[in-house]
């Protein structure tokens, strides 16, 4: 089975990111394919490298990045949602004249078309949200 994953809520505030991660990890371990994980709404906050959760808690961003590294998983942050919320890669930093970037390794920023494409290409698109 080929899955697309949509994450609509921010990390820690809401369990959606954790559930999406657990589902994605389980699917990959079972040998399924995950076409793409798309982060929308506050879900884009999964992709900041500046978060510092307590040492004895999970680090949601690092966990996604490790999964991406292990399975070559495509983690895409929506550019429109990211611009509103201050998630910035090197390119956007230059383009918008910002003094910093904060996109975590393993993530990339792209457009909403990537979500629609995930819907078209996947056998199932699973939405994790509120």
């Amino acid at each position, binding site marked *: 089975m080929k899955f697309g994953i*949509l994450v*609509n809520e921010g990390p820690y505030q809401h369990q959606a990111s954790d559930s999406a991660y657990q589902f994605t990890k389980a699917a990959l371990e079972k040998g399924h394919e995950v076409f793409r994980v798309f982060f*929308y*709404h506050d879900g884009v906050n999964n992709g900041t490298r500046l978060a510092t959760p307590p040492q004895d808690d999970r680090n949601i961003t690092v966990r996604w990045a490790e999964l991406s590294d292990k399975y070559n998983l495509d983690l895409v942050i929506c550019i*429109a*949602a990211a611009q*509103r919320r201050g998630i910035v890669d090197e390119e956007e930093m230059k383009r918008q004249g910002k003094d910093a970037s904060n996109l975590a390794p393993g993530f990339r920023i792209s*457009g*909403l*078309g990537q*979500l*629609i*494409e995930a*819907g*078209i*290409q996947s056998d199932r*698109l699973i*939405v994790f*949200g509120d």
Partner: protein
Amino acid sequence: MEGGVVKKFLYVNRRAPYGSIYALESLEVVLIGAAFEQDVSLLFVDDGVYQLKKGQDTSGVEMKNFSPTYNALGDYDVNKIYVDQESLEKRNLTTDDLMALTYEDEDDDYAEKPSIRVISRDEVADLMEEQDVVLSF
């Protein structure tokens, strides 16, 4: 655009237009998605029916009133807009309270036709059942 694959996409809008950003960002997905020439339907349920209410005035909350954008959906070939009857009734709303969204039917000499269809809960279930992709906001 995607090798001719056409899937049935349903956008389920469940929340009021203001108070959270879900409605606005959902509409952004619909507009971008329209370029992919898929078979798109929109469903408004629960407080989501307020998104279609006419006469929205956001000056008091100092947020952008994005409701005029719904009028453009017809131009994007998004013309199947379903509204859950039970959700309307529970909020004392009728179709007269909603924006008169229309589209031009290119198969009928571009006659202007209403896009909004009020449907029952059973029809909502049928609508969801026949979809390939359901995006819930």
